[in-house]
């Protein structure tokens, strides 16, 4: 069973830039991977609940207070940014100018 995977659409959703050459290679890789995954269809999961985590922890919360021991200074927060201006991060424009 061959699954046609919309590679360029997924690339757009995942915000991953790909070339048309890569698109073909990815198509083949996804088919190979999904063929292995498809084998799960043979397992009977009637009345089986899914497991999303294994430790059974529930509603883990903390006090809504500021932990000053791990607060960044502005300088630390900006230390790894490629582009900063006046103590701010420079982000890509997402709203058109007109």
């Amino acid at each position: 069973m061959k699954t046609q995977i919309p590679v360029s659409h997924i690339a757009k959703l995942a915000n991953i830039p790909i070339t048309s050459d890569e698109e073909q290679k990815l198509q083949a890789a996804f088919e190979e991977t999904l063929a292995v995954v498809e084998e799960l269809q043979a397992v009977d999961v009637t009345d089986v609940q899914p497991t999303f985590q294994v430790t059974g922890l529930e509603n883990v919360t903390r006090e809504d207070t500021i932990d000053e021991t791990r607060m960044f200074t502005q300088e630390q927060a900006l230390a790894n940014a490629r582009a900063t201006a006046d103590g701010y991060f420079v982000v890509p424009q997402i709203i058109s100018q007109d």
Partner: protein
Amino acid sequence: MLNTLTLTEVLGKLKRKEISHAELFADLQKSYAQNEKLNVFLTMNDKLAEDSEAAATKALMGVPLAIKDNFCTTGLRTTASSTVLDTFIPQYDSTVTRRLKEAGAAIQGKTNMDAWAHGSSTETSQYGRTLNPRNPEHLPGGSSGGSAAAVAADMAIAAIGSETAGSIRQPSAWCGTVGLKPTYGRVSRYGVVSMASSTDSPGPITKTVEDAALLLNHIAGHDPYDGTSSTNPVDDYTQALGQSIEGLKIGVIYMDIPGLAEVKSLFEPQLKVFEELGAHVEYAQAMDPNHAIGVYTVVQRSEVSSNLARYDGVRYGNDRSHFGDEAKRRIMLGTYTLSKGYADKYYLLAQKVRTLFLQDFARLFQKYDILVSLTSPGFAKKIGASESSAMFGELEDMLVEPSSITGLPGINVPCYHDPKTNLYLGMNIMAPMWHESEMISVADAFEKHTSWNSWRNAEKQ
């Protein structure tokens, strides 16, 4: 050569003033000549001597440890072996490295890995593959391949790795080292570059079981910064060393899967030592590990697509065009398996089969105290092997994936050495959740009563 000593031996000799830190560093420094060929370390800590001196009076006495490059280390470049993070200098420490520093360890350097921990070979590293020190025509395994190779090459006294499904145990098997993957939630994930958040588990890669128990003591325990870390009490794992395993019930699993022929006949005779030590050993039928490949593949890709969405090059790092082929494959496949119309078919189904694995292990642990299997279905593969298949890692990790998706602890110990190739086979010893101590007792007993551990056999100065 002091770099060939185990962590326990180094601590003992420093304490008794038989050796100095300067002598230890000088021998480690000489071992770094191998790095050009093996490509084990990506970044060294220039301030090692200073850091070590400042910590010399604490429990770990300033002894240097090699750290996988996905643990954030304050002021020391952390790339996860991806050029997306090529220039990333963390402004804070992971809980694991913070605790190790507080216990007196010094960070020696950051080790190569599969990029983002995606793989089982180190061949997906964007800084080049690491070679297996035992035989450089072969791969070290991965994703913690650099950490395992650092230990195997005696370029480190001990190392820290992380495992999502096999990434501590499999490279340990291939490099002939000890690798301990704790119960999920036993060791904090805070400050570790996330891969699959529901299975990521940091742990030690060491020369002996004793060293692994010692390091686990320092990193295990609840962390308020990781909501998934457990508040269950932590044992003193060194108390598990030297214990009798008489009367323990050990189940042997995964011996009937196809393709094991070559290594099965080498592995099976090793089980006799457990009987000689008074344990009861029998073969047990477990759920087909092939299904764990499907479960892990879907769960891991899905969680990766979510975790790696944050890398946009704004607050740190480069933009998304820097992702390598393997990361692209995993992010995109995960995006697909979580997308509308496919989430039920893939993601939900995988999580249901995961439940079946949990039930199967619960059944097995009613009958057995400990389960053992091969860690990897074979010896270390040749360099280039991972390029043959998009599923390379999953096939190599098949025997450890069931215990990973169910959060169980496991430890790899060397259990065979091939004198022709100088390569090792590894035994995977698994316990119920939170039962690391029993697992350590069995691993320690095996190590001490067999000849496969290269450091226990070595002539020491």
